[in-house]
């Protein structure tokens, strides 16, 4: 059982600020998903949450649990590695599917497939 009240004030402040920053970035990313026009622009917005957003949440978690000394802080590093390695796969799949669709339908200004240039 961890007691957040045992945390020194400075650390509680830093943890809270990091959490707010991470949550704020995820929120701005979702807002961008709503606001930006077109598929290829929208796909950029959620990466805010998966990069610096998740990074600051993980930093907050590392600080919190290592100060309370409840467990080793390596979990967060693993989470970061898994995020960095898996997000490009999903993004590339989405982008290539959209590109394929746009080329078949000849809609929008997408570059021609390689080899036809």
């Amino acid at each position, binding site marked *: 059982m961890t007691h957040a009240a045992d945390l020194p004030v400075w650390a509680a402040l830093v943890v809270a600020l990091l959490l707010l920053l991470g949550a704020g970035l995820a929120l701005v990313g979702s807002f961008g998903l709503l606001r930006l026009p077109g598929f290829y622009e929208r796909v*950029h917005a959620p990466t805010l949450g998966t*990069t*610096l957003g998740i*990074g600051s949440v993980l930093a907050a978690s590392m600080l919190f649990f290592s100060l309370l000394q409840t467990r080793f802080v390596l979990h967060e590093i693993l989470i970061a590695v898994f995020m960095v390695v898996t997000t490009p796969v999903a*993004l590339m799949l989405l982008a290539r599917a959209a590109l394929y669709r746009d080329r078949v339908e000849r809609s929008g200004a*997408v570059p021609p497939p390689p080899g036809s240039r």
Partner: protein
Amino acid sequence: MRRILPHPLIALGLLLSWLVLAGSASPGAVLLGGAIALAGSWALASLAPPRLRLRRLAVLPGLLRDVLAEVVRSNVAVVRIILGRSVAGTRRPGFVHIPLDMRSPQGLAALACILTATPGTVWVEYDSTEGTMLLHVLDLIDEAEWVRIVKERWERRLMEIFE
């Protein structure tokens, strides 16, 4: 040895990450992690990836530092674009073709991770016969500038590590 343990480093990494995830080094966790590491390295061997050769790892700390700095910088830039008053405005999104000299699959994968981890750029397509990569950039000011950034900031150092 190679037949029992085809990818010793990968197996060791799998075992270590399993122990970290399980949060213990009890005999049970080591046994299960060892089984997973063996199965993982056999699965990888059946995919027959080209062997990874790492050269000049001294470049790595500087590269990681620059990636972190670039992640923060591009996050701020994209937040400004999203919250900016005019979404269309003077900003011009677009595709850039970037000719790459790097052929190592691991190096290309690392480049894809870097470009995706920096908001504002998305790796769209790679053509292995021509060696060109198609990048979508949220705020495309100058195409030649992006080619220079990708080639000089990332590709050159990744080639030093992987090729």
